[in-house]
C-alpha cells in the first residue's frame, strides 16, 4: 500500500481537518462525533438536508455541503456507514424548524444506521423524512439481493433537492422532488482496478491485468460480470444499454448525462466515455440538455467510471440550474 497518509486510524479525522482548513468559508466541522455542517446552519424555516455514509467517496458528501445543497454530511469510517450518534447530532445541528430530509444510499449499513438515527431524532420532536437512493441498474433482481445500490445518482438528488430546500419548499415537497430525481435516475459503473482500503492495506478485490468488472458499486463490489478489457466505446455501450432499457428513456426525452470517475481515472478518459455516451443517446433521439463530468462519487483510487442518466423535466431542470456553492460543485453564485 502506497498512500499519502499518516496512520490508517486517523484518515477520516485528518481529512475532515483538511476540509475545515480549506473550506472554512463554507462549512464548520465538528468532532467527536464527527460531522460537517453548512456555515451559518441552521437556516431557520428551511428544510435541512443531511446525507452521509462511509468515507472514501470524496467529494461525496462533505464536498457538497453548502448553499443550495446539503446542510450536513456525516462521514463514517472508510467504506463503513456512520453510527446513529453523529447522524443524530448533525440532524439536530441543522434543523431549522422546517424538518430534515435524510438522503441515504441503499447499502444495508447506511439504511440501518440512518433509520435508527431518524427514530432517535423523531423522539426529540424533529420531523425527519428519508429518501433511499437506488439508481444502480447493475443489480438485477432486488428480490434476491439487498436491492439496487445508491451510487453516483446521489449527487444529482442532493443538488436538485438542495435547490428545492433553498427556495424554502416545505418538507413534503423537498422529499417528493428528491424521490422524483431518484426514480428518474439510472446508473451503472465499471472498475478497471481495485482500490486499497487504508486499514486493510490490501486491494479490496483482485482483477487480472486484462480484466475489468462490469456493474460495480461504489466500493468496487461487483454486480454483473467480469470480462476482458475492451475499447472504451464497447464498455460505454455495456454500461448504457441496461440504463436505457431500465427506465425506459424514450426518443424525445431530455436528460442530464453524468460521467463520474471512480478516483483513479483521468479526466481525459472520462471525456472519451462522455463522447460515446452522448453519441449513443443522440442515436436514440434522447437529447442531452445538461451534463456533468468529473470525480464526484469516488472509490478511493480505483480506476473506473460510472454513467448516470437523469430524465429531466422543466421542474428538475430549473432546480439543477439554480445556484449552488459548495467545495465540489459551484455555479451561479
Amino acid at each position: 500500500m502506497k498512500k499519502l497518509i499518516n496512520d490508517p486510524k486517523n484518515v477520516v479525522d485528518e481529512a475532515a481537518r483538511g476540509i475545515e482548513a480549506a473550506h472554512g468559508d463554507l462549512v464548520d466541522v465538528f468532532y467527536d462525533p464527527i460531522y460537517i455542517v453548512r456555515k451559518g446552519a441552521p437556516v431557520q424555516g428551511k428544510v435541512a438536508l443531511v446525507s452521509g455514509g462511509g468515507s472514501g467517496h470524496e467529494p461525496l458528501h462533505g464536498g457538497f455541503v453548502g448553499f443550495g445543497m446539503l446542510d450536513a454530511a456525516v462521514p463514517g469510517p472508510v467504506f463503513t456507514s456512520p453510527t446513529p450518534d453523529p447522524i443524530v447530532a448533525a440532524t439536530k445541528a441543522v434543523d431549522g424548524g422546517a424538518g430534515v430530509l435524510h438522503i441515504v444510499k441503499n447499502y444495508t449499513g447506511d439504511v440501518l444506521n440512518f433509520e435508527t438515527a431518524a427514530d432517535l431524532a423523531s423522539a426529540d420532536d424533529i420531523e425527519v423524512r428519508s429518501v433511499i437512493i437506488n439508481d444502480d441498474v447493475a443489480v438485477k433482481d432486488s428480490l434476491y439481493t439487498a436491492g439496487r445500490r445508491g451510487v453516483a445518482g446521489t449527487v444529482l438528488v442532493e443538488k436538485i433537492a438542495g435547490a428545492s430546500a433553498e427556495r424554502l419548499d416545505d418538507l413534503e415537497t423537498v422529499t417528493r422532488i428528491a424521490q422524483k430525481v431518484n426514480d428518474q435516475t439510472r446508473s451503472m459503473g465499471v472498475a478497471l482496478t481495485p482500490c486499497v482500503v487504508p486499514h486493510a492495506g490490501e486491494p479490496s478485490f483482485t482483477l487480472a491485468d486484462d480484466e475489468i468488472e462490469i456493474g460495480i458499486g461504489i466500493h468496487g463490489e461487483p454486480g454483473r460480470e467480469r470480462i476482458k478489457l475492451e475499447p472504451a466505446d464497447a464498455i460505454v455501450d455495456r454500461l448504457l444499454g441496461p440504463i436505457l432499457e431500465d427506465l425506459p428513456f424514450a426518443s424525445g426525452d431530455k436528460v442530464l448525462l453524468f460521467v463520474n470517475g471512480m478516483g483513479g481515472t483521468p479526466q481525459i478518459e472520462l471525456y472519451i466515455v462522455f463522447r460515446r455516451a452522448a453519441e449513443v443517446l443522440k442515436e436514440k433521439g434522447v437529447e442531452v440538455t445538461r451534463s456533468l463530468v468529473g470525480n464526484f462519487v469516488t472509490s478511493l483510487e480505483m480506476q473506473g467510471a460510472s454513467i448516470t442518466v437523469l430524465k429531466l423535466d422543466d421542474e428538475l431542470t430549473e432546480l439543477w440550474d439554480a445556484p449552488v456553492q459548495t467545495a465540489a460543485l459551484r455555479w451561479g453564485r
Partner: protein
Amino acid sequence: MSLGIDWVTEWIRESARVIADHRVELITLDREIGDGDHGENLDRGFSAVIQKLGDLPEGALPGDALKLVATTLISTVGGASGPLVGTAYLKAAGAVGKAEQLDGAAVVALLTAARDGVVLRGKAEVGDKTMIDAWTPAVDAAAAALADGADEAGILAAAADAAEQGAKATEPLVARKGRASYLGERAIGHRDPGSQSSALILRAASDAAAGTSGTGSGSSAPDAS
C-alpha cells in the same frame, strides 16, 4: 449452577479477545465477498465495550451489562454489523430483564431473543448467507440441549458447536442479503464473515460459562460441577 454477571462480563472480555485475535481473518473473509471492514469494525466496537465495562456499577445485573454492550456497539461499529450485533445484545438484555441469575431456560431465552433481534433488523432468513445462518442453528441446538437436561454450560457449548457448523455451512451458499449479495454465484465457496464472527462470539459465551476462556482451548465444555 446458574450464570450471573460474572459470566456476562467474562463473555464480553472473551468476545473482545477472540475478535481481536481473529480481526485479520474476518477482514479477509469480508474482503473476499464484501468490502473488507468486518474485523476492523467489530474489533473497534468490542475494544470500546471493554473500556466501558469498568463503568458498570457494583451490583450490576446481567441485563445491564448486555445493554452496555448493545449501546456501545451501536454507537461505535457502524456499517451493517453495528446495528445487527447491537440489536442482538439489546434484545438479549430485554429477555433477561432484572434477573440476577440465569438458568438454562433463561440462557435459551437470551439466545433466542438475540437471534430474533438480528432477524428483525436484517430481515434475513436461514440460507441467505448471513449471521442468521450461525445464530439460528445455535438457538435450535441450545433449545434441544435444554430439553435434554443439559446445564447452562452444556447448552452454550451446544450452541457454539452448532454456530460453527452453521458458519461453515454458509460456504456453498449464494448470498441474498448484504454486500455479498451483489456477487451472485461468485459468493459460492466463501464463508460469510458475519456468520463466522457470530460463531466466535457464541464460542466465547460457552468458554466463559465453562471457565475455559482465555485458555485458547475453544472446545466443548467440561461438566459443570
